[in-house]
């Protein structure tokens, strides 16, 4: 029996999510943007695991889901970095501001 309420975990996840969001939307370096997105995914994972333990009907499924999320996040990180590398080869920069070829 745990004495930590569900809402404590949820608030922690919320704070981390907001930090990740802020980083993803303001950082200039593309690597940091990717990392911030990982942080946001982590916050979501906390929610999943917290609900799997303290939710209305506790079960193992929440943990399984977080495992899938981690796998997809890993794939995303790999592909994202590959895209970043090829962009870097072309533009010689990792500044996200300068990647604006899709301008009107």
């Amino acid at each position: 029996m745990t004495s930590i309420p569900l809402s404590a975990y949820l608030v922690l996840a919320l704070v981390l999510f907001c930090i990740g969001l802020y980083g993803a939307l303001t950082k200039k370096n593309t690597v940091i943007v990717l990392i911030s997105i990982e942080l946001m995914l982590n916050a979501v994972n906390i929610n999943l695991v917290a609900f799997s333990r303290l939710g209305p009907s506790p079960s193992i499924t929440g943990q399984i889901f977080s495992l899938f999320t981690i796998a997809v996040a890993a794939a995303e990180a790999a592909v994202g970095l590959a895209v970043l590398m090829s962009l870097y080869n072309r533009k010689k920069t990792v500044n996200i501001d300068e990647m604006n070829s899709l301008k009107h």
Partner: protein
Amino acid sequence: MTLSGEMLAFTLLSLAAIMGGILLITLDRVVHMVIALVFTFISIAGIYVMLSAEFVAAVQVLIYSGAITIIMLFGIMLTRHNDTNQQTAGIFRKLLLLLGIAGFGIAVYAGIYQLDIPPEETSLHIDNTRKIGTALYSRHIIPFELTSVLLLAALVGAIILAKKDSEKGEEEEG
């Protein structure tokens, strides 16, 4: 709410996680940021343990603190950085975003505050890894196999993306 050992552990872990996040935002050097985030990832692993998810905690340490961090460090090393002072974006946009995020946070917090689900006794911590294994290979077998396909695709895609362009770059240079 009494100050139990569990409570203490939770407070420390969450503080460490949040500190890591804040450092990520405030630090100047890119490598430092990534290192700061390792603290967050490890703290989150601790949180998982508290939530009777030992296996997920192990995976968290292996994948996030290990693999992804290393990949990111490689990414940083392979690209050139005029490192410091990566601050960007206009003040106006930052303020607006802060405001939006704060509003969002408060609104969601209001929702969380109203949430009241009584905790139940579970047996998730007993044979946690076995249970995960059983569930993965029985009930969730199809998503599991699909994930392997996804990982393979990501692997091949990442190699092709990085390789082709580097060749092109060489040709251009040569």
